[in-house]
């Protein structure tokens, strides 16, 4: 056990062993002869049953971190540990086995669903890829998932274009939680949605986390949404972590000038006096 892990466990007790931890993650993109450090030495711990938010402006590297954690893009250096196993060392069948425990939901639900597949087959796909569940049992699972996202069973015969943005995003979430993953990475899941629909999705995510005992890594540029949903938060800028801590502490008394500027830039709405 490394000294850092020992330190963490003595501080917060052994039950707070992180579900996911990343150490010194770096991603260098080579573009036209020039190297671009999109992510530079990022370390983070996602505690089980908690929501960790990563907030930052465009180009801060927050989505790159999300994709590296999922091994959708390879880190240039650094290590990712998932449930105590070294994810960066895994490949092939071992990686495929681990993937069912960690799932991702993307920003744009309109492009995340295949327009030629019905909603039913979109939700069934994880079972076909990762399990031997077929036939009547598969139908039953798909209907149970539609039930979880509060869509009528008949929606399995519909195509993506027949659904609203919020409904599509719920389908994407259903598909992501189909195999009961332990970690759900949410990359700007409400940014393409209207505010009333955003509220529906946020409330749904909060409820789902409790029901399915999920852990979230939540990426967003929207500070108010992060404030609302996350237990802990990491503020990123230009590929580096600027500040991290409990959401309350970071928002109430930011230590870094950049964090303060970010928070102060959000226009305030006069308070409702009802």
């Amino acid at each position: 056990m490394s000294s850092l892990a020992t330190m963490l466990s003595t501080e917060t007790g052994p039950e707070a062993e992180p579900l996911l931890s990343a150490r010194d993650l770096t991603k260098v993109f080579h573009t036209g002869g020039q190297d671009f450090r999109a992510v530079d030495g990022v370390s983070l711990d996602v505690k089980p049953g908690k929501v960790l938010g990563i907030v930052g402006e465009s180009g801060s590297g927050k989505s790159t971190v999300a994709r590296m954690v999922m091994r959708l893009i390879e880190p240039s250096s650094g290590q990712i540990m998932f449930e105590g196993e070294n994810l960066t060392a895994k490949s092939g069948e071992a990686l495929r086995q681990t993937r069912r425990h960690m799932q991702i939901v993307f920003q744009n639900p309109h492009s995340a669903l295949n327009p030629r597949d019905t909603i039913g087959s979109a939700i069934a796909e994880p079972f076909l890829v990762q399990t031997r569940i077929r036939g009547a049992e598969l139908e039953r699972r798909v209907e149970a998932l539609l039930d979880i996202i509060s869509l009528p069973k008949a929606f399995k015969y519909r195509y993506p274009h027949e659904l609203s943005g919020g409904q599509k995003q719920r389908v994407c979430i259903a598909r992501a939680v189909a195999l009961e993953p332990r970690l759900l990475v949410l990359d700007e899941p409400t940014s393409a949605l209207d505010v009333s629909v955003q509220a529906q999705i946020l409330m749904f995510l909060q409820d789902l986390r409790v029901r399915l005992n999920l852990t979230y890594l939540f990426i967003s540029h929207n500070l108010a949404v992060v404030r609302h949903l996350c237990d802990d938060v990491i503020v990123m800028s230009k590929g580096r972590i600027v500040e991290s801590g409990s959401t309350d502490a970071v928002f109430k008394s930011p230590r870094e000038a950049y964090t303060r500027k970010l928070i102060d830039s959000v226009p305030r709405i006069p308070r409702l006096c009802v």
Partner: protein
Amino acid sequence: MTALLNIDNYRLDIPTFDGVLKVLDGIDIALEQGDTLGIVGESGCGKTVLARSIMGIGPRNARRVSGHIVFDSTALDELSEADWRRVRGVKISMIFQDPMTYLNPLLTIGRQLFDVITAHYRAQGKPAPAKTDRLARCVRLLEQVQIADTQRVLKSYPHQLSGGMRQRILIAMALAGEPKLLIADEPTTALDVTIQAEILKLLRGLVDRLGLTVVMISHDVGAIAALSRRVAVMYAGTVVEQGTAKSILTRPRHPYTRGLLAALPDIEGDAQPLEAIPGTIPNLINPPSGCRFHPRCPRATAICRQEKPETRSVGADHVVACHHAFD
């Protein structure tokens, strides 16, 4: 009526293959010179169609069913295309959401700004001043939008500039004809929050210094609140509530306005639970009868299904269209 902009019972239909979209359903808006109006609403509520109709660049196949848009004592909806050229960009200007899309990637900023200035003289049938004077005007316009290194920017191509800088340039172009009214359609939506704050501050300054009248369209209540003295809330092609920003935001009367505000997470985060508005926005080919919000409204009764609510005054500069408005 001394209002600079007066929209009166404006109804617009757009025929499509699936049927006729009843896209605007009796819009009433009046705006004084030097005032700022924020039009807030979710996607598909008709706010952009309304903004484009004011500018005379609405959908080509749109049909005006009733009403007028009167600007500076001119009925805009009766102008010929030749007359429009003396209004558009000169009296009314517009800026858009994505500043990259509206700049030519192949020409320098200087060239594009210069062309806009020249075109304004041509459109008004006036001889253009000497080239050096027009170049000096380019520099003054950039200074007006608080760009410091004007010489570098004039020589730059759009891709060499940041999103915030590009939006400043579009604002400069919009100001080239010295318009009375500026329509800003989601001017900060594509920008990061820190840049958004700068652009809103710039627009605020232009309102104060130039006495510009602004109609800002946004789905972002925060951005609207930062700029607008008055607010109109749109839902499914209707204005459901209108008045001073302070009055609307602190004491909303319409159930939709309340729902919209309750759906916003608060950055001050005093852990008040969010409230979602159930359901989704209606299809405007076959909009709900009576009040268009009634299928999603917690206060709806039989009358809401039958009668479209009249707009009535509920305070100094605060009107609401609801049968069961909050007190």
